[in-house]
């Protein structure tokens, strides 16, 4: 891959991957480090030619594996360090985003992000995470239920 080809690929894919990494870890510095590592691994491995969607999924797969490596080392399991000024309660739903994200497990954040922010289907999530489609469906169901459950007490007290 030439530098020019890489630049156009990077411009097209880096932002959503960085958002995913920051969204799942809750840390911008970690997200940026992992983003660079994701593309380094991609370039060093030189995967066979893929179309844009396959490349995108492949990059998400590398990013997800890097996140898992961090959690396996227990570097940072908690969701943290998002600037305080960026957080506020949603007036309609009374959602404290920080609390809800912090209460979710890393894998739950991963799956929910891919499904609802990236808009990936179950098969795409499976390709991006290395899980089986049936497992994605089940894990996503649990994550969704948990996330929704975190909001219920607040709603009831409103």
């Amino acid at each position, binding site marked *: 891959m030439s530098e020019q080809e890489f630049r156009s690929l990077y411009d097209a894919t880096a932002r959503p991957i960085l958002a995913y990494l920051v969204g799942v870890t809750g840390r911008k510095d970690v997200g940026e480090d992992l983003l660079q590592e994701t593309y380094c691994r991609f370039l060093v491995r030189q995967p066979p030619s893929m179309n844009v969607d396959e490349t995108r999924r492949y990059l998400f797969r590398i990013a997800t594996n890097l996140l898992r490596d961090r959690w396996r080392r227990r570097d940072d399991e908690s969701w943290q360090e998002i600037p305080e000024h960026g957080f506020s309660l949603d007036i309609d*739903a009374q*959602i404290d*985003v920080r609390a809800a994200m912090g209460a979710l497990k890393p894998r739950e954040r991963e799956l929910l992000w891919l499904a609802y922010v990236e*808009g990936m289907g179950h098969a795409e999530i499976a390709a991006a995470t290395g899980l089986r489609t049936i497992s994605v469906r089940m894990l*996503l169901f649990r994550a*969704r239920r948990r996330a*929704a459950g975190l909001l219920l007490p607040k709603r009831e007290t409103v």
Partner: protein
Amino acid sequence: MNRIWCERETDVVRSLRTGLLSAELRDHVLSCVVCAEARSAAQVMLQTASLLRTEDGVPAAGLVWSRAQARKRESDQKRATRPLIVMRVLSAVYVVLCAGWALHSFWGSVSMELLSGLNAFWSGTVGLGAAIALLAIAIGAWYLLYDGRRSGAGIPST
């Protein structure tokens, strides 16, 4: 039995992104537990995504490219020096085996007749040849190990 997914889930999440929730879809959300949970969970994720504005934070493509190239060179050098590392290990193993064989022969000679056995061993052609080979291998192995340690196992750090 609880359903774990609904075919309208994608539409519900899309409605959150666009802000367009039709009356029919609203009715569906009210009657479908899966979609109601998906809506709540997606709200958390989308709100987080909107708070984590990362447009300006993407590292420069050139920086990532340079880092990947450096990593690639390092990886190529590692691959190129791998045979040398294997040779070093084999040399060390060979030295140990030769030393074991020499000790075994020596011990055999001693057990038969201490002094005459020693003379027979050292004066014999086989013993002399083995000693020279052992010496040559030991010098070679020592040089390889010394050279490897001096240059950091032949792999320059970046």
